[in-house]
Structures are given as structure tokens and as C-alpha cells.
């Protein structure tokens, strides 16, 4: 169980002093204590927490119980200092028949989308929410699918109407007194620059974007619903691969493994830890390569040289990972308590392959930099566009290269270490530009750092003389004690990838919520794009590096 630190006690006292009768109870979650707040005062509680340094709302998840609904908020401190890092949870109960909780979207803007999702899937209403609509499912959907009582077999009807017709009426946005003469366009859901199935409802004034609203859910694949019907031990593991499907599978698997291993108290042998770390960093390289390649694709158009080089390097990484796990993309390699196979034989050859890649990498990175930064056209479009101030980024819960491109060095690997990262020597990459270019540069820098980690892991594995234990003893059926819950995160390729598991004592999770970094990063998109040129909006979208398997889940 979590330790209640001095800081937790102080903050609890502070809230009790400032807001008498706002705290109803204190619960214990695996990761941190949870303040049970008065459902109508939860925004005040969260505000006090925010003022006292818990400045990052990771996620909001709604959980159903027999006699109530719960809305659980996970707050963290964004910091680059391990000593300063801390987390705390807030819980608000809502009654069974008409679940409603006060919104916190006036405290954290990022809560807006999270609460809409909780409403969409679980049917918990948030009072005073500015925009309480469905977010993932079509507007015309019937029922809230994560509820126990939901009937999957009822017929549903969806319409083609979601696309507003641009010629039917002129869209006018009031700004000051003068109504602007504007034009409305739909971008997506199959537009090639949206990197998947995103629909942007855009209002243009000339060439300037005055209003943009992302419409998501075109790849909602019911991941949470499915995971809640599968066994912890083997059945859930293939699904994480499909959240962030751009080769970041190893990291996603780690996020699930970390959460359940902490909750069910499973050890991982050190040898397996090293392999996991190696695999995760290879995944990160492949993922960032695609991000850089497609960013160039968005700016230059048709299959250009950066894209091709990036794919060439991805092929090499995918081959290495295929040797390790047997699959190119959907690895299904991690197991609870370790990994599924030992390194491929002959090991020397495999190590040689990795070494060849990492040795050539500095030369290649130089080339990427020349191609990107030496190109005036690209620099003009990437530098100074898509500005995201660090304060705004924190408001929306942006993480990963997006946040680090705004100069905040928050990296879960550093502040809340897992796997083998603690023993290795690497740096967190940050850039202060806050623009599209910085975000891409951060990714390039991270590829180099990942290669450093990979090299060190290979060294360690080569000189390994202890027992090569790839999996610890895991009980035949994994079932954490009833009523326990845990939220942990890992540093995904796109940011903080968190998992919230609530156990009811069976072999299947009662609730499994995925905190997807892309979801939060995308929610800040309108801040980034409004006031920019339409063409720069596309560049900004590319620099966010979205993957819709993770946004929509």
C-alpha cells in the first residue's frame, strides 16, 4: 500500500482548514492516498491541490459500483525533480440513479474532454460542464456502454449528418462587434494529413483559422470494455499493442504490466527488466522515426526523402524487434512477471545487429538534422508556428515530447522510474522553442538518448553472468484483492501513458481505464491552431504526432 507522506498530511490539513466539510473521508489506493470529496465541492478541492503544486490532472475515470458511481481524479506534480514528484487521488461519489458530480473543467481545462468521455461511456453527468456532449460515440447512440446494465444487442442508428454541410449556410463567428465573414470546412475523417481518422470542424476567415473543433471517435474500438471482460494473466496483453500501434507496443505493454504487477505484487527478475528496457527503447526509436517522417510528409507532400529514410530505419528496428518477439508490429512479448522468450539465438549475431544500427545512428541523425533544419522551406513553416506555452500545456495535461518541446522536463522514466531506467545513464531532452520545430527536435534528441540506453542494455546483457531468468513465478490465476485500485504511468512514445485498474477480487478487472497521452495532447489542439494559417495548422497537427488507436481507444 502507498505511504502517506508528510506532504499528503499537510495538504489534507490545508484543505480541511480552507474548506471545512469538503473532505468526507480518506481512502487508500495503491499509488497514493485518495481524498473522498463532497461531490458538489470537488472543484474547490482540486483547486486547492492545484494551487499547492499538484498541477497536472492525469486522468478522470468513472467507475461503477453496486450502489454508486465514482469519479476518480488522478493528480500529479509536473516536475523534473524526482524528490519533488508526488501524486494524489480525489474521489467523488455520485448516486446510482442520476449520477452527477461538479465539473473540474474550470480548474483544469484538460478535464473538459476527460469528463465528456466519462459521460459518454459511463453516463456520469458533470454539473456546470460547458459542453456536456458525447465525445467518442455518435451523438445518436443509445445508452452508456460501460455500465453493467447496457444492452449490446439493442439496435443502434448512426447518421451521415455529423458532417455539417459547408454550403448550406454561412458560419459566422462573433468577435467584438463585427461579425467576421467566414467559411466552414470539414477536414477528415479520411484526410491524409490527419494521420488517421480525425475530423476537424474548421472555420476559416480567409486563410486564417478562427475556430477548430476536433471530432474524434472514428476509431473507438471499445478497448476498455473488452479488457474488463478478459483475464489479467494472458488475455489482456495483446490489446495494449493496438493502442499506440506505431511500433510502440512494448511501451504500451509495459504500462499495463506495471500497473497490474504493482497491484498483484508480482516481482520481475532483473534480467527480464533489462530486456524490457531494451525492447521499450527500440520501440520508442521506431515510433519517433515515424513521427519525424510523417511530419516531413505533411510539410513537403508526397513521399519524400526524409519519409523514406525514416522508414528505412524503422525497417531495421522492426527487424530487430521481430527477431526478439516474432512479430513486426503487434509484439505481445511482455508477460506478467517478465517476458515471454529469452533473447534470440545466436545472441552475438543479434547484438551485432543492434550495434550496427546504433553505431550508424549518429551519422544518420546528422543527416536528418541537415535535411530538416537545412531546409529553408521547412524552417519557415515549422519555426514559430503552433506555439504552446508551458502554462497552457500543463493546463491541458499535455505530456511527452509536446511538453518537453515547451521546455518542461517532465519524463516519467526520470521522476517515477520503473524497469531498469534508474541504473542507466541518459538525459531528458527539452527545448524551449514551444513551436513545431522544437517538438520535432525533441524527438530527434530522444532517438539519440534511446540509442544510448539501448547500447547500455546490450552491454549489460552481453556481460550477464547471473541466472538468465526471464519470468518470475506467477500464480496460475492473478486476482488482486477486492476493492484495491491503482494508477500508474509509464513514459509512452507520446507522453504519460497511464492505466487505472480497479479490482473486484476476480480474475478480470472491474474497471480498466487507459489514460492516453494523445487524447490530452489533442485536446489542446484548438489553442495551438486558432489564429494560425490553415497550412500551419496541418504542420501543427503533424508535430503533435497523434495516433488514433490511442486517442479513441
Amino acid at each position, binding site marked *: 500500500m502507498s505511504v502517506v507522506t508528510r506532504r499528503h498530511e499537510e495538504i489534507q490539513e490545508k484543505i480541511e482548514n480552507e474548506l471545512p466539510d469538503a473532505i468526507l473521508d480518506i481512502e487508500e489506493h495503491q499509488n497514493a492516498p485518495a481524498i473522498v470529496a463532497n461531490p458538489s465541492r470537488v472543484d474547490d478541492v482540486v483547486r486547492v491541490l492545484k494551487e499547492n503544486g499538484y498541477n497536472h490532472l492525469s486522468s478522470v475515470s468513472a467507475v461503477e459500483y453496486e450502489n454508486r458511481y465514482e469519479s476518480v481524479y488522478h493528480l500529479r506534480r509536473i516536475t523534473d525533480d524526482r524528490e519533488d514528484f508526488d501524486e494524489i487521488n480525489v474521489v467523488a461519489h455520485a448516486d446510482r440513479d442520476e449520477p452527477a458530480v461538479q465539473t473540474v473543467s474550470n480548474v483544469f481545462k484538460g478535464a473538459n474532454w476527460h469528463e465528456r468521455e466519462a459521460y459518454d461511456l459511463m453516463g456520469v453527468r458533470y454539473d456546470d460542464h460547458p459542453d456536456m456532449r458525447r465525445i467518442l460515440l*455518435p451523438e445518436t*447512440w443509445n445508452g452508456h456502454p460501460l455500465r453493467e446494465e447496457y444492452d449490446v*444487442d439493442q439496435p443502434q442508428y448512426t447518421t*451521415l449528418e455529423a458532417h455539417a454541410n459547408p454550403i448550406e449556410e454561412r458560419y459566422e463567428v462573433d468577435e467584438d462587434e463585427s461579425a467576421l465573414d467566414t467559411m466552414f470546412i470539414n477536414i477528415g475523417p479520411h484526410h*491524409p494529413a490527419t494521420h488517421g481518422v480525425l475530423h476537424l470542424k474548421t472555420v476559416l476567415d480567409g486563410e486564417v483559422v478562427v475556430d477548430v473543433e476536433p471530432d474524434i471517435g472514428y476509431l473507438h*474500438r471499445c478497448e476498455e470494455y473488452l479488457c474488463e471482460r478478459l483475464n489479467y494473466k494472458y488475455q489482456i496483453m495483446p490489446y495494449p499493442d493496438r493502442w499506440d500501434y506505431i511500433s510502440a507496443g512494448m511501451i504500451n505493454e509495459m504500462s499495463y504490466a506495471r500497473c497490474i504487477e504493482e497491484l498483484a505484487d508480482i516481482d520481475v527478475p532483473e534480467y527480464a527488466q533489462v530486456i524490457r528496457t531494451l525492447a521499450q527503447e527500440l520501440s520508442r526509436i521506431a515510433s519517433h522515426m515515424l513521427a519525424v517522417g510523417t511530419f516531413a510528409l505533411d510539410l513537403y507532400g508526397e513521399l519524400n526523402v526524409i519519409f523514406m529514410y525514416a522508414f528505412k530505419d524503422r525497417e531495421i528496428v522492426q527487424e530487430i524487434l521481430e527477431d526478439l518477439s516474432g512479430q513486426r508490429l503487434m509484439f505481445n512479448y511482455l508477460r506478467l512477471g517478465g517476458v515471454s522468450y529469452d533473447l534470440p539465438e545466436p545472441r552475438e549475431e543479434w547484438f551485432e545487429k543492434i550495434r550496427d544500427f546504433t553505431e550508424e545512428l549518429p551519422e544518420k541523425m546528422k543527416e536528418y538534422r541537415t535535411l530538416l533544419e537545412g531546409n529553408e522551406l521547412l524552417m519557415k513553416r515549422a519555426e514559430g508556428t503552433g506555439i504552446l506555452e508551458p502554462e497552457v500545456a500543463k493546463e491541458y495535461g499535455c505530456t511527452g515530447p509536446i511538453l518537453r518541446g515547451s521546455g518542461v522536463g517532465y519524463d516519467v522514466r526520470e521522476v517515477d522510474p520503473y524497469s531498469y531506467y534508474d541504473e542507466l545513464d541518459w538525459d531528458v531532452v527539452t527545448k524551449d522553442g514551444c513551436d513545431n520545430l522544437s517538438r520535432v527536435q525533441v524527438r530527434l534528441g530522444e532517438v539519440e538518448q534511446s540509442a544510448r540506453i539501448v547500447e547500455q542494455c546490450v552491454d549489460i546483457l552481453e556481460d550477464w553472468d547471473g541466472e538468465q531468468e526471464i519470468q518470475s513465478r506467477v500464480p496460475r490465476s492473478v486476482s488482486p484483492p477486492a476493492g484495491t485500485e491503482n494508477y500508474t504511468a509509464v513514459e509512452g512514445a507520446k507522453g504519460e501513458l497511464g492505466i487505472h485498474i480497479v479490482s473486484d477480487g476476480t480474475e478480470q478487472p472491474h474497471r480498466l481505464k487507459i489514460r492516453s497521452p494523445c487524447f490530452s495532447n489533442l485536446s489542446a489542439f484548438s489553442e495551438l491552431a486558432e489564429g494560425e494559417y490553415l497550412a500551419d495548422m496541418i504542420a501543427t497537427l503533424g508535430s503533435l504526432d497523434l495516433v488514433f488507436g490511442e486517442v479513441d481507444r
Partner: protein
Amino acid sequence: MLDTSKTQISERREGDVDPRMNSKLREMFGSLPIVTTSLDKVMNWARASSMFPFQFGIACCSIEMMHTVAIKHDMDRFGAGVFRNSPRQADLMIVPGTINAKLAPRVKRLYDQIPEPKFVVSMGSCTISGGPFQEGYCVVKGLETFAPVDIHVPGCPPRPEALLYGVMKMQEKIKRGESSPVTVKPYEIRELQDWDRDEVADFFEDELEPDTLVMNYTHSPELREVSEVEEGVNPTTPAEPTEGD
């Protein structure tokens, strides 16, 4: 509203000449069998040798599709590498990924917007049956439930080599002028006014125009009775309903 739902999808059967291969010239020279046969051959050869796939990424499979186009696998070597961003310029639709109830009407519309003759390669188990997400509450169980498919490429995701093989099989079929039997299961997209009154939730009555296109989604298509579908109302239903689904 564009009435794209009414595109006729002709019935196709193995062995017969695919009506999609018909051309105006063929109609003109109908009485001169030798000329038309050779002409058809040339046309089909041309069609197969320069396919224009439609660039349409949905999910994980589209990453492998990008690898198929990019360096190393390079689909261009087989005359099918020029991806078009607009359905109007394409003739091959590769559908790479999971389709859910929100996306399905859009995929249908994109399919309808591709000019004839058009061919569909479905990539990955998601487009065959819903794949790993089959049990999901809003996942459509396969592309074939609302659009005809010529070639299925199984896998999750299929390797680039597998997709190449699938596309080449497609080309072979086109060259020979034949195509696969089509089974379209009855997922319907109809105008609101065509639905039985009690079938449509009251909600729609007040909210929508009578000519709005509405698609229904059922979690378990086998629960529905096929006979419900009136002939001719749903253009995607083949004239002879295939037995069972």
C-alpha cells in the same frame, strides 16, 4: 444531400464476365465478338497494370500499408504504387483497419465515390470479421457487411509481403476479367423515410430531415432476420440473398 447510397453494385459471380469490366466501346462493338474480346483483354491488362490505390489509413494495418509503399517493399514495382488522396482518382480501395459504427457510413460513402470499375482489397482480420475487437459494442463485423470485397488479406496486421500478394492476386483477377463472388450482409443505409416507423427511435423523428441517410448497427448481425430487408430498397444487397451469413 448527395444521393450516393443509390450506386448500383452489380451482382458478380465467378466465371461470368464482370459487368464492371464493361465499357462503352464494348456496347458499341457488341456484335463483333472478336474485336470486343481482344479489346477487353487490352483494357483489363491496362487496368491491372496501373492501379491507383486510394490512400485511406484507418488503424494499425495502415502502418503496414505505409511500409508496403515505402522503401524495401515498394509496391510501385507491381504497378500499384501511386496512392491517390481523392476517391475520385482511385480505382483500388485498400481498407486497412477496424471500422466502427461511426466510421462505417463514411467508408460507405467513400466507396460510393470511387468511379467504376472499382476493386476492394480488405486488409487485416478487422475488415474480415472485426478481428480482436469483434466483441466490442460499436465495432462493425467486417467490411463485407456494407461493401463488397474482392480480396481478403488475413493477418493482424498482415505483413507487407502479404498485402503485396493480395494486390497481385487482385491484378491477376482483373487481367483475366473475373472477380470473386460477393456476399454483402445486410447492414443497411437508407433514407430515414424508408425505415419502418417502429424501427427508428423517436429521437430521429424530431431531429432529422426525412431524407437523411441513416445506418443501423447491430452488435450481432445473426440476430437479425435477413428477410427483413426488402429487395431493392437496399442497393448493397445482392438480388439473390445468399444463404446464411
